[in-house]
């Protein structure tokens, strides 16, 4: 699994970029993820994969893995010693079919 399926047109990439750049959007994503997702022209399968934390499917439809890793940190945690480690494990579990 690499970059061979990468699709630069997925709107989910913009979502991740905006979450990085906008603390208010990040807070809203935590409180009301659906409202945030509604504002992005996500493809149905792309949105479903985000909602179901299904990174395997997300990557299969062309999501960039680097931004996928960051998406996992928005969801599960971003601090080096704890949250990010949980995010890593959750991400790997999804990608390797362990969940």
């Amino acid at each position, binding site marked *: 699994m690499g970059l061979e399926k990468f699709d630069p047109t997925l709107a989910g990439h913009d979502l991740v970029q905006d979450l990085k750049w906008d603390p208010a959007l990040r807070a809203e994503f935590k409180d009301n993820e659906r409202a945030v997702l509604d504002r992005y022209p996500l493809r149905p399968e792309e949105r479903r994969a985000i909602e179901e934390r299904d990174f395997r499917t997300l990557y299969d439809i062309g999501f*960039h893995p*680097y931004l996928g890793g960051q998406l996992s940190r928005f969801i599960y945690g*971003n601090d*080096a010693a704890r949250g*990010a480690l949980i995010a*890593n494990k959750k991400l790997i579990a999804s990608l390797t079919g362990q969940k």
Partner: protein
Amino acid sequence: MAEIVFAAGIPHAPAIVGLFDKATPEQQKVVRHTYAGLSGGLRRARPDLIIAFANDHMTNSRIIAYPDFLIGMAAEHTGPHEWFKPWIGCRDYVVKGSPEAAEVLFRGMSRRGVRMFGSRQPLKFDDNISVPSVLLELDTLGVPLVPVMQNCTVPPFPDQHRCYEVGQKLSDLIRHDFPAEMRVALIGSGGLSHEPGGARYLFIDEAFDRWFIDLCVAADHKRMLRELTIEKMEAAGSGGTAELLAWVVVMGAIGEKPGQSFGYAICSDFRCGIGAVAWNLAA
């Protein structure tokens, strides 16, 4: 004529700051030795300007309008960008920039056929610039920094041949466009093997890392350009390892010079192989 007085390839894995305590004493020793050696070498070189090429990591631009090279033209560079602070775990820093040198770089590379982009607004930095800035203490050095954020992750991105060519043109620019007597330090920030966000997130390709360091030390650039393909780097960690192309820019600028390694550390908590090379420009 301006000259390159320091050149190094430097790792920037965030965990070597934020998870440093998770490493064994031996691994910590390698990290300390690496950055002490690089910092000492940089200071002994007495540069007037530092130009650092580093993987942008999609930190500054949208993926649908992504520059291969983005020059930081601001008068001051600060970091880390707020979202990355808990991820990196490093202190804040402020490094002065050089809008004048950045303009010379932008103009000169454009005239030499390299399409770069520039930002007069401060760029956002994650570990790419933040880790070298903090561990080399660039904020206390008093030397202006011009960061060049490189596309090493959004396909298609410049391969080893193009990056080497960019480095050669950079060398010509430094010698002919910068003020005479200017002393320039070049840093390629990135590596070694890692696969951020991938199924092999915790995988480190030790064999590749040791091969690559040996390659940099040996100064056989024909072999490097033949063997250090994007495919090989992707196999050693997709979406991450190819940021070693920032080192290739530096090697293109200095030509075939032997390098000095500071050792190698492999620690799964770092999620990245750790090693650096400083090149002997007097050789």
